[in-house]
Structure formats: C-alpha cells, structure tokens
C-alpha cells in the first residue's frame, strides 16, 4: 500500500482506528458517555473525511473503489453509525453494556459496510461482508441478560455462516470459469465464456446470489429475518435493517453500473425472486401482531422492490435503485429509533397491544412513526412514494409490466398492514400506559430522518441530481 492508497482509505482508517482506540480506552475507562461521544465524533469525522478529502487514486489496490459513488456510501454508512450510536446511548447505559465494545463494534460495522459498498473485487467483497457480519453477531446479542437477543444472535450467526459458505464456493466457481476476481471483469467475462465454463460461471453467480439473498432476505431465504429483528434491540436493529442490507445492494448497483447489462442467463430467476419477495413479504406482514416482525417483513418487501430496480440494469434503473435504497435506509432507521426511544425498563414496545392508543400519550413520536410507516408504504408527498415511482418508471421503461403490476399489488397489501398500525396508534384506549420520553439525542435522530423523508418527498430533485452525478 502506497501513501496515495492510504490517503484514499482515510475515512475507513479513521473509523477502524477510532474504533480500536475506543475499544482500548473502554478497557480502562468505564464511563460510557465519553466513549459513546467519542464514537459519534469518530463516525462523523469519517464522514467528513470521505466528503472533503479528495482521493488521489480511483481504485485502492485493485480491491476497493475510491470513486464518488463509493464515497457517497462511505458517508452514508458513517452517518448511519453516528445515528445508531446516538440512538443507542440510553440502551448502553441502562443495560450496563460495555460502552467501549459496543461503540467500537458499530464503528467496525460501518467500516465494513463502507468497504463493501466500494468493493470492486470479489475477495474484497467477501472480506468486507464478513467484517460487518461479525460485528453484528456480537451487537445483536450484546445484552447478555436478554434471552431473546441471544436467540437472535445465534440465528443470525448460523444463517450468515451458511450464506458465507455459498459465497465462498460461488466465488471459487466464478474464478474457475472466468480467471479473474475483479468484480466488473468477472461479470463481463461470464457473458464471453462459452460451453461448460459458462455453466460453471452461472452456477457461481447463482451461489453468490443465494448468499446475497440470505443477507438482504429475499424470499425464500428470508425466514431468519422476523426472528432476528424481534430479538435484536432496536438501536442495533436500526443498523441491521438498513446498513447491512443497503451495503450489499450498493455493491451490486456499483458493479452493474460499471459492467453494463449482465443478467442474461439469470433474468428469469431474478424476476421470480423479485416477484416472490414482494408478494410473500407483503402477505406475511399482514398477519403480524408485533411491530418489529412487521418491519422485518416490510423490509423483505422492500428488498423485492429494490431487486426490480436492479433487474432493469439501465441507468434509470440504477439511479432509481440507489434513490430507493437511500430513502429506505433513512425511513427504516427512523422507525427503529422511535421504538428505541420509547423503550424503558420493561423493554421495547413491540406487541400491537402495547401500541394501541399510544398516539395520544406520545403524539409527536407516534405521529412521526405513522408518517414513516406511510412513507414505507409509498404515500405520495413522502419520500417513499418518489422512490416507488422511480422504480416503477424504470421497470416499465425496461418492459417489466408484469413485475410492476405485482409490485402494485404488493404496495396495496403493504398499505393494509401499515395502515393497521397507524390506526392502532390513534385508537382511543384507556389501558394504554406511558413509555420513556426519549433523550435529546434520540429525538435529534428522529427529527433528521423525518425532515429528510418530508424534504425528499417534496423535493426529490436534490437527491436525484446527486445520484446522477456519482453513479459511475
């Protein structure tokens, strides 16, 4: 690694070294607040470095891109880590979790996600993916007194282990068939390969797809999602639902943007996956009685919609996918932070019975939650609608009318379950009891997410222009 390479890696280095320093400091110094504040500052520094320091090289050691697109996601995930830490402060203190460990793990996860989003090499992809998955195993189960969290941690570990197996095998097959591990090249060579090699290559990509399917919970690889979401504490859940999935989608978008249309052999399979994911996710969510499980199934549906955008492979499709992804991350994060901000010594409000009528005791946060849920459903004038609109537009442009109609059906069903929750929130109920009032830092994160959802809903042009400029 040369000096320019290191300079290009600066944001990641800040996150990793900052995390390590905080981890070490935490071993001696047990006061949580300064450690958490240090973590937030580190994450913000990472974001600033990614935004301001001009990378001297375009690609780092042939493994990671340092282009504008990679930088954008580095900033996004760093900010996500900062938000995640702000939302987690009270959780860490009240459950006496080691602040040093928690903070450093979040920073490592952010570094892993940023690396994954900028990976241009299959090995880099593998390493980055494992980096943040490893951090998440621990984060999910870090509250040792909570059995549900331990269960969720184990489930996530087992599922990830299986998907890692698929990923590694898939990469090996791709290498065997194409002779390269560089991402865009391997994809392009797949279409050039003939005969048996082509078949092996396709199998390899299929296996990578399965691994991706596990990570972003496409149907039928989604079964872990509701259980893990339910057991995961909301501050971690907010990161798991957004960053861990978003980073995987981001690397796919980055790859497609460079390689051009490549799905040929896999189009039908992807079509089926997207359709199944949208429908099964939406139908399963209908029966839920637990908000976190509902959010889990809703995320499944959203990943299906994202896949529609990925399937298009046109520049419109990729722009739409990136836009959708950013909006999904912001909205989902907001919803999880609201759950976290309500949590008190009884735990987090999860069951629908606990939410009934809560809108009258906590009007602002419940109102915002309703807004975020409606944005997830795709109500016009919120960012969620613009996101859905651009995906549908791109898909229709590429001729996927059937898929769009399925998407429309799944949207209508989604409205049914999101509306049920919003109705529940404002249903007069005598037996409802107060939850925590939330801290200033939690409110700040919620406020930022909400303003972004509203602002981007009314003026999406800002983000479109940005994405149009950064997409390679």
């Amino acid at each position, binding site marked *: 690694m040369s000096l320019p390479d290191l300079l290009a890696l600066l944001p990641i280095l800040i996150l990793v070294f900052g995390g390590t320093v905080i981890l070490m400091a935490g071993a001696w110094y047990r006061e949580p607040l300064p450690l958490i504040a240090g973590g937030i500052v580190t994450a913000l520094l990472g974001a600033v470095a990614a935004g301001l320091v001009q990378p001297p090289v375009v690609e780092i050691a042939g493994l990671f891109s340092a282009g504008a697109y990679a930088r954008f996601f580095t900033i996004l995930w760093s900010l996500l880590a900062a938000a995640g830490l702000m939302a987690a402060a009270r959780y860490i203190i009240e459950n006496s979790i080691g602040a040093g460990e928690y903070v450093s793990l979040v920073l490592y996860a952010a570094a892993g996600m940023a690396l994954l989003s900028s990976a241009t090499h299959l090995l880099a992809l593998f390493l980055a993916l494992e980096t943040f998955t490893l951090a998440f195993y621990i984060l999910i189960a870090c509250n040792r007194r909570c059995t549900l969290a331990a269960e969720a941690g184990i489930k996530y570990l087992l599922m990830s282990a299986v998907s890692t197996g698929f990923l590694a095998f898939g990469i090996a097959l791709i290498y065997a068939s194409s002779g390269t591990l560089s991402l865009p090249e391997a994809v392009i060579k797949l279409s050039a390969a003939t005969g048996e090699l082509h078949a092996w290559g396709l199998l390899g990509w299929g296996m990578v797809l399965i691994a991706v399917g596990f990570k972003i919970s496409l149907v039928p690889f989604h079964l872990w999602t509701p259980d893990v979401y339910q057991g995961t504490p909301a501050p971690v859940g907010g990161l798991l639902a957004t960053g861990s999935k978003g980073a995987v989608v981001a690397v796919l978008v980055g790859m497609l943007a460079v390689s051009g249309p490549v799905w040929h052999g896999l189009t039908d399979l992807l079509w089926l996956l997207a359709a199944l994911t949208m429908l099964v996710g939406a139908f399963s969510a209908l029966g839920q009685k637990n908000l976190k499980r509902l959010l889990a199934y809703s995320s499944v549906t959203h990943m299906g919609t994202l896949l529609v955008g990925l399937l298009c492979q046109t520049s419109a499709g990729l722009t739409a996918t990136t836009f959708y992804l950013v909006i999904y991350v912001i909205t989902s994060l907001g919803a999880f932070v609201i759950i976290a901000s309500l949590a008190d010594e009884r735990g987090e409000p999860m069951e629908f019975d606990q939410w009934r009528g809560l809108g009258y005791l906590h009007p602002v946060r419940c109102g915002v939650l309703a807004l975020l849920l409606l944005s997830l459903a795709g109500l*016009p004038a919120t960012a969620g*609608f613009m996101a859905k609109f651009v995906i549908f537009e791109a898909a*229709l442009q590429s001729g996927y009318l059937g898929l769009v109609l399925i998407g*429309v059906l799944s949207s209508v069903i989604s409205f049914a379950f999101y*509306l*049920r929750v919003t109705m529940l929130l*404002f249903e007069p109920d005598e037996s409802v009891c107060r939850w925590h009032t939330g801290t200033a830092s939690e409110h700040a994160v919620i406020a930022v997410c909400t303003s972004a959802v509203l602002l981007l809903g009314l*003026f999406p042009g800002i983000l479109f222009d940005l994405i149009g400029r950064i997409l390679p």
Partner: protein
Amino acid sequence: MTAASALPQFPWLTLLILLPLGGALLCLLHHRRAEECRWLALATTAATLGITIYLFVCYGQGDSGWLLYEDAAWIPRYGIRFTLGLDGISLLLVLLTAFLQMIAVLMSWSEKQHVPMFFSLLLVLEATLMGIFLALDLMLFFLFWEVMLLPMFFLISIWGHERRHYAAIKFFLYTLAGSMVMLVALIVLYLIHGEQTGTYTFALAELMQTDLSSQQEMLLFLGFLLAFAIKIPLVPFHTWLPDAHTEAPVAGTIDLTGLLLKTGIYGLIRFAFPLFPEATRSFLPVLGIVALTGIFHAAWAAYRQDDIKRLFAYSSISHVGLVVLGLAAWQLTAWEGSILLMLAHGISTGALFVLIALIRQRTGTRNLAELGGLWSQAPQMAFLFLFFSLASLGLPGLANFAGEILVLLGTFQTHPVWAAIAVIGVVFTAAYMLRLVQGVVWGPVKGRPTLPDLTPREWLILLPMAVLVLWLGLYPEPFLRPLHGAVVNIMAGGLP
C-alpha cells in the same frame, strides 16, 4: 395558454391550497387549546371561501380559456411541474369545496375528541381537494388524489361510528387499488409520450398530443377509468361507499358525498376523456349503460334501507349515476346539466346529512323504524328536512331539478331511450325519498313528544344552503355561464 398566464399575477390558486394547509399546521401547533383550533379552522375555511367567491365574481364571467393559470418547475428530472389551472368547471367545484368545508367545520363545532387533530385533518382534506380540482400536471394530480385518502381515512377510523375500522380500511384499500392501476397507466403514457417526442413530461396539454394505437389507448383509458369509477362510484365498484358513508362522522360524510365523489367525475372530465378521445368515444355506450344500471340498482337499494344515512349513501350513488349518464350522452346541455347536478347534489345532500346528524343528536337513532312525527316534535327542523328532501328528489324550482332536467333534455337529443329509462329512475328516487320523508317527518310520534328545535348556529349552517338550493333551482344562469366555454372546449377534445 392565454393572456392570463403571461401576466405576472397573484398566485391565487396556490394560495387556495396553501391556506388550508397552513391552517392545519397551526391547528397542530396549538394542540393544547381546543377552542382556538375551532376558530382557527373556521377562519381558514372562511378565508378560503372568501377567495373562491372573489375568484368567482372577478374571473367567473370569462367565457373560455384558463381563467387563471399558474406554472412552476418542480422535479425537472422527471418532467413533473407544479401546474394549476382554473376553468369554469374547476371554478364551480372549488367553490363547492370551500363552501361545504366551512359547513363541515361549523357542523363539527361540538366535536369533543382530539379537536386539534380533527380540524387539521379537515383542513388537509380541503387542501388536497383544491389540489385535485386545480392540478393540470398528472403527477401533481395523482399526488393530491392519493393524499386525499389519508385525512378521510383518519376521520373515519378515529371519529367514526361502531364499525369504523372496517369501513376506513375498506375505503382506503378499495380506492387505493384503483389509483395504483391508474399510476401504472400514467407512467406508461408518460413513457410512450417521452419515446415519441423526446420530452418526458406529465403535463396534461402535452400528453394529450401522444399518438396511441387504439389498443394502447383503450387499455390506458381503462386504467384511468378504474380509478375514477371506484371513486365516483359506478355500480359494480360502489360497495365501499355505503360502509364508509355510514361510519364516517358528519363532517366526513358531507365531504365524502359532497366532494370526494365529485373528484372521480372531475377526473373523467378533465383527464380520462381528453387524454383518450377515441377510446372514450367507443366506450361511451358502455358507460351510459353502467350509469343507468347504477341509477336503478342504487335507487332500489336505497328504498330498502332502514338506516337513513345508508339510504343516502345509495341515493348518492343513484344521483352520480345520473351525472355520469349526462356525460355519457356527450351533448352540451347534458354536460352542463351534469356539472350543475353535481353542485346541486353536493349542497342538498350535504344539508340532509347535517339534518340527519342533528336528528341523531336529539333522538339517538338513525333508524327509520324508530323515527317519526318530527313535524310535531321539532317543526323548524322538519320543515327543512322536507325542503331538502324535495330538492333532492328533484322538485321543480329547487336545485337538483335544474340539473336533472338539463341532463334529461340533453340525453334525449342523442340517446332518447336512455333518457326515457332515466326518467323512470327519477320516479324511483321520488319513491324512496317520499318513504323517507313519510317515516321521519310524519307518522305517529316515536320517542319524546318534543325535541329541541334548531339553534342559531344550526340555522346559520342550514340557511345559506337553503338559499343556494333555491338560487340554483330558480336562476342557475350565473353558475352556467362560466361552464359553457369550458364544456364546449373539453367536448371538442381540447383544453379550455
């Protein structure tokens, strides 16, 4: 467009949308003081009504072209613009919206539950309705069209009656399903237009120029029609209305019948017909027959209801059937009659809902079997009930008659058979209305011998409505004048 667009002008139309929105926001900010919210909502609706009356007086006499037109860039990447335009048709509907919304606020004066939220939802509803009647960019229209569902959904689900949750969800999903299909059709049209001309835009005037094969045109037309048919509602798609209607609080019911149903008809007139003229032409006979079926089916259903609110839900479906019949006849007089009938129906039915709510407040029931003898219990109320019922059944000299007779006259010129059948439908209307009046106003007194009669506030609500009903019935000319040019233009396949 016209000279109006060239001059820098005060953005009245934008104000019509922003004013209620601002009022809604203020209501939410003042959520600790319920009393202030009431006055705030009243002031906002009064100001909006004032503006619309001002527009009616100043611009209402122009005979063609956009009376007002506002246009601004919004999302350039996708060619979405913030375009609002006012012609004779939208002018009348905007006027109706502002008027009924003020009635709705006055009618909800005694609302106790979560007052600030209630009024802010009413105001948001008003803003979205204004948006629907003014938007000329299809995406902008769609946005208002969808957002409108939300305040209505909450009004039903929080302040509604016993089966409110079921009714609210049914209302939302039913209408949403239709509009999502419209969204797909809309995007397809946008893409086809973009490929043909190279400019991607949602502007109505541009999209009307799109070259479509007749099959494409029919499919897209059906996509739009589904959304509007559900909202109107035309008969096979009407089942959401009686539920939503019955369960909604009184302000919600007034808005639902008086205004929401009109958005569907307006959508047909403004978007579906001009965008797909060929498909429209070949589909009109079907539309006419569907409308006729609706008139009879709904009248028959209304006759069998015991809950008077439900009865009026069906009666509204029957009335809008007549409105759509007038449109399907594709004849100038019939169209003018249809639009006038929309106005008349909005006011007379709105007034009847006000009275039903007052009766229920006093007797605790809406069941026809438990009502009777209102004339001796509360004569003033009974008189107005009779007055508006007669207006609603089309008594000459009152509002609905003027619209109905124009529809029938116009229809007779192009489709005499339809008109003949529709006349029988009007007789059906008389049947269930008289059964209703007989049951409520006359008959043996059930319940208490006297009921408290109308209070000054209630007179304040009903008197303007009565005056308007008479005005529309006796001298509809001022309302027809702005219509003429707009209707002629739209029927000729153009924009005002």
